[in-house]
């Protein structure tokens, strides 16, 4: 596929694990990944990933440069957005456990999330969860995917139009705290997808493939996507670009 016809996917690069998302997107043929910090960069993208990080920080930085209305407009045009962890908190209509005074949220996803659902970092964990039917198959016969939860939120209520993609069965200890057996950790609704875990911290690019698929379907429906604005030259900034590679190993 010619570079100018590649599907352009933005990763909100204000803070957090945006580099990891860029690396996984780069493995998918026909995808051009773009770091998004400004309105112009956002405008050029057919879809957007809001990465893991601190939702309070991302909200404050986005607000400072007027990016929140731009993001709301992006969502209003029904261009697909995928939020991981902090990104899920951005997309949810209702959030509990937020900092005093609340947080500027994007909204659009009819569900309630609770921040830091599992507690402090010592309760962070990884596990294997059953893959939803829409996820591309891989060679694993058990058909699971590796899910890494870092001070993760969880979805405690979902509205009627929201499709549940993955649920996590709580351990006995967690059941005693939360008074329930399981909790929703991945959802999809219209052009929005959200996961409480971090596919970007693994080698598994299937969630990214699923999202790229959503973006392509949407772009096909919307012919105007072909006329998307050209991506700004990332090298146009005046400062010095760090000379060392940014990619960490996957543990």
């Amino acid at each position, binding site marked *: 596929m010619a570079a100018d016809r590649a599907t352009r996917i933005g990763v909100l690069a*204000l803070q957090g694990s945006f580099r990891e998302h860029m690396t996984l997107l780069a493995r998918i043929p026909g995808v051009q990944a773009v770091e998004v910090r400004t309105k112009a960069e956002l405008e050029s993208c057919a879809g957007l990933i809001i990465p893991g990080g*601190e939702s309070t920080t991302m909200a*404050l930085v986005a607000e*400072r440069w007027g990016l929140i209305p731009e993001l709301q407009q992006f969502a209003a045009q029904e261009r697909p957005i995928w939020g991981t962890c902090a990104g899920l908190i951005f997309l949810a209509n209702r959030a509990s456990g937020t*900092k005093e005074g609340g947080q500027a949220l994007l909204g659009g996803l009819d569900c309630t999330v609770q921040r830091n659902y599992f507690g402090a970092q010592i309760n962070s*964990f990884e*596990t294997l969860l059953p893959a939803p039917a829409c996820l591309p198959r891989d060679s694993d016969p058990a058909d699971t995917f590796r899910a890494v939860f870092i001070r993760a939120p969880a979805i405690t209520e979902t509205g009627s139009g929201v499709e549940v993609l993955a649920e996590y069965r709580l351990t006995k200890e967690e059941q005693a705290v939360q008074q329930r057996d399981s909790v929703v950790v991945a959802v999809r609704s219209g052009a929005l997808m959200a996961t409480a875990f971090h596919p970007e911290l693994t080698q598994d690019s299937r969630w990214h493939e699923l999202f790229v698929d959503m973006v392509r379907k949407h772009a096909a429906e919307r012919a105007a996507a072909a006329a998307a604005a050209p991506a700004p030259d990332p090298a146009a900034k005046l400062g010095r670009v760090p000379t060392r590679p940014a990619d960490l190993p996957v543990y």
Partner: protein
Amino acid sequence: MAEQQRGTQAVKVGLAQMLKGGVIMDVVTPEEARIAEEAGAVAVMALERVPADIRRNGGVARMSDPQMIREIKAAVTIPVMAKARIGHFVEAQILEALGIDYIDESEVLTPADDVHHINKHAFKVPFVCGCRDLGEALRRVAEGAAMIRTKGEAGTGNVVEAVRHARAVQGAIRQLQTMDDDELYVYAKELRAPVDLVRQTKALGRLPVVNFAAGGVATPADAALMMQLGMDGVFVGSGIFKSGDPAKRARAIVQAVTHYNDPAIVAEVSCDLGEPMVGIDVREKGFQSYAGRSE
């Protein structure tokens, strides 16, 4: 379904990955912690005295009162870090029991063991450790550190040592990348670091864990400088709450770290911040280096 696993390397390094591109601020009260959170800090470091006060007051600096750490933890939703003395694994056990999100095994506190660091593999909570060069960084990773910060000189408001240590690490990695694989055994011996970590660092072209800058960052320009030198984020200790307008300076440093490569934005956020902290020249007579207290 598979059991959940806590405290794996992916989970430990993963939290540091979520902090990348952010600022971690030293705070001594719940009120300061709230100011830091409002300014956009990705995490706070709870401690009894900021390094500038530790320098001024002298004496033995220890882990903070657990009560005070609890109060700070209750005040904010962002991760809370706390410092343990080098080699003091019981202070680390206490911090783990308190539910601290990251432990800083820090040379800013008076070392409890001048030979051995904590065996950090024995903990589920992740650790960040200081380094002055590549060998020191990889020795800490070998002991189980899931995040590294270049040491700089805490409490000085002088960025020169932070720059020296960041350049030392990055320069050594560039040198390593030019080497033949046969030469890595002797180089690892010179670095006093495990050869497998040296090999991994060569392959990656960077440290195998997240690498923040620390020790002397006082202005948005200092923070952007450390980012352009290739750091993943910045610790700011005394620089914020020892300055004239902490809330404003904190917000400015957060913006400068996100937009570190855009001088127009760094210029804009640097305007009218009030008095910066008073700096110390590290070449002054009687200056005590904290960075040199461990290796």
